[in-house]
């Protein structure tokens, strides 16, 4: 709408990232460059995903017979994200909190900068007012939680001393997280929720996902003796 509105949106989208970085104690570890590294790997992963999509997938998802199947295949490529996050975790020395948080925050920050900055710059600054920009900003905040939780789960899965039952649950959750947007879209479509209510649903699910990851992580940390 105006530059001022753009400022509002930017504050809404980036300040939680900043707070997460500052208050997780990462700044004290000097993990900034590790975050940047995570961002680089994010970009590289996206590039590979795009190449795969462009090479192996038809322009028109309808060729698969239905949108749902087409979208399903498209989101399958998102498994590359998990692999990318795994590499990020591998590249960060240390263990426990800082490792997981650095990977999650770095990854999410790279995403938010690459996917939202241009949108806000072009859209929110224009003359037309639309709630969609505020919604996108709030969605980015939800994504932060999700990425940290996903990073935690990937780290947990790579541990050998995680018991087998939990390992299966974690794997299932990770695979589901790839299809998360597809699932949410379908859910919102089926229940005919509005965008705001859809956002609330997404937030609630992500919160549950995060809490679940946190409790498994707490158990593991207890086992390993890190605090």
């Amino acid at each position, binding site marked *: 709408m105006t530059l001022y509105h753009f*400022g509002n949106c930017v504050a809404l989208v980036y300040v939680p990232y900043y707070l997460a970085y500052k208050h997780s104690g990462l700044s004290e570890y000097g993990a900034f460059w590790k975050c940047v590294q995570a961002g680089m790997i994010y970009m590289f992963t996206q590039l590979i995903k795009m190449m795969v999509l462009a090479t192996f997938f038809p322009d028109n998802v309808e060729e698969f017979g239905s949108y749902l199947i087409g979208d399903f295949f498209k989101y399958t490529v998102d498994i590359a994200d998990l692999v990318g996050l795994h590499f990020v975790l591998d590249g960060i020395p240390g263990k426990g909190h800082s490792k997981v948080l650095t990977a999650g925050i770095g990854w999410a920050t790279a995403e938010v900068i690459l996917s939202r900055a241009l949108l806000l710059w072009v859209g929110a600054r224009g003359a*037309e007012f639309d709630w969609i920009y505020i919604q996108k900003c709030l969605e980015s905040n939800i994504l932060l939680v999700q990425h940290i939780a996903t990073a935690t789960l990937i780290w947990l899965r790579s541990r050998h001393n995680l018991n087998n039952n939990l390992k299966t649950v974690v794997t299932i959750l990770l695979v589901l997280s790839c299809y998360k947007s597809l699932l949410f879209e379908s859910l919102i479509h089926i229940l005919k929720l509005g965008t705001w209510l859809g956002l609330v649903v997404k937030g609630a699910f992500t919160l549950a996902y995060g809490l679940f990851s946190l*409790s498994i992580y*707490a158990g593991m940390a207890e086992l390993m003796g890190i605090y």
Partner: protein
Amino acid sequence: MWLDEVEEIFKGYLPYYILVFLPIFIIVSPANPVSAAHEFPVYRMQHYDLHGISFGSRGAAVNLEARSISAWSSSRHCIVTRFTDLTLNSFRNIRGKAGALIVQLPKTLSNFTQEEKQQLLLLENKMLYEQETSIPVYFTKYDPKFDNIVTELETNIDISNKKKSATEAMFSSIAGNGYQIVIASSNPTARTDIKIPTFHGHLAGSRPDGKVPTIAIVTHYDSFGVAPELSFGADANGSGVIVMLELIRLLSGLYSNPKTRGKYNILFILTGGGKINYQGSKKWLEDQLDSSEGSLIQEASFVMCLDTLAASDTIFMHVSKPPKEGSASSMFYKNLKSVGEDHPSVSIEGVHKKINLAEDILAWEHERYSIRRLPGFTLSTVKSHKDSWRSTILDSRENLDTNRLSRNARIIVDAIGKYVYDIPEGEKMDPDLEIDSNQIESRLKFLADQPRSQQLLSSKDNGLVTSLQNDFSKYLTDVKVTYAVPDKRDPDYQFFGNTKGTMNVYNVKPAVFDLILTLAITAYLTSVYFAINYIPALYSLCSNLIKLEKAKAK
């Protein structure tokens, strides 16, 4: 003001050099890269000068806040309304004090009661002729999306409205949807490429003594209305053109056979600029009468002009001087009367109106010829030249009664046929001249499906003009085109550009809304801050729970 706010947000969170770079980015980035959610085509009101008097709306560019017709207050507002909601008084008020006016036309231009129609005609007429308008005035066709915007603006709470509660009023002043209307346009300039084409051609008659008198049939092809792009002029003067083309088609068939060739030369003149004081006729007459070689028009028995032939069931014969008994015009009038008697639903009337030489604007096209001492009359179904029906955007194809047009065409064709072949009263034409109503339909479709305002037809190689010329060339001999061009230094008439444009409607919120949003975002961020601080506690809670479980398991 906002700079301080921005600074406050950024202070402590983001480094200060952002404040240096951000303005640079803003300057470097392309200006306002917006794509409006709503774009509508709009058509600007007439804008022309005639004999030194300005008509229509002078402005073109709009960048103002939209308001409904009941809620505007200053020249910073652009009034958005429906044509049916606009009244003459409110228009006068708007013309003087508002910033711009956007009028949405109804879904269809038919379906009006007689009263509504008269009111719209009067309004349109006054909008055009009362005095010039300095603000931009645009018309837009019915669009459901735009209609919603108009309705929303109407229901928007007007702050001065006492009926609404204080909370409602406050809420609407904070979060109310506003619309910004932007029509990007340069200042309209007088067009210099105006060329008004007039065609003429004739059918040569024959008489044994070789002295063949001439009759001339004249009609203009342009239309007129409050907005040039919306003036389809099905009746005025599409009907005149259709009747003339029908006459040409039928008579040329007879004239091509030496046995059935008529006793008169028939000169057909299709003129332009009929709605701007018959400029086409004026120029054509000057050329013909002042040229050294003789012209058919000089020995014309009479000049018959056709104008608006489907408006009513009465055909008026307008003359500027009552025809003398025994003159060609009076004989034609008798023919017309006798043909009219065969159609009980039709009446034929003569109307006498003297030429007012004191006035610049002539009433009927035949006056152009009468001034030059050529006996002339106009056939029309409207009684007065001031009838608004001759210059309205309501005159569209759906408002034209094709049966009536065919019947009136038939009467005129029969009357001319009778005259040309000297058929005594009471006898029928042989062979019969059959009007082809399919032809009329298709011609009407062709003529009335595109706006025919003179300024739109004056460009080179206009499709409509070319096709009319082709029709002439197909049936008539000696088809020639005369162009009327306004004088460079002291033009009689001038048209201005920018007849249409694109309107962007932006959804905007009041400035206060941003401040409230900032407050909300600050509150949200504070809660995020506390949530993040709470995470260690949550973590230890989880750990304790797990410890407890383990202890139980043991």
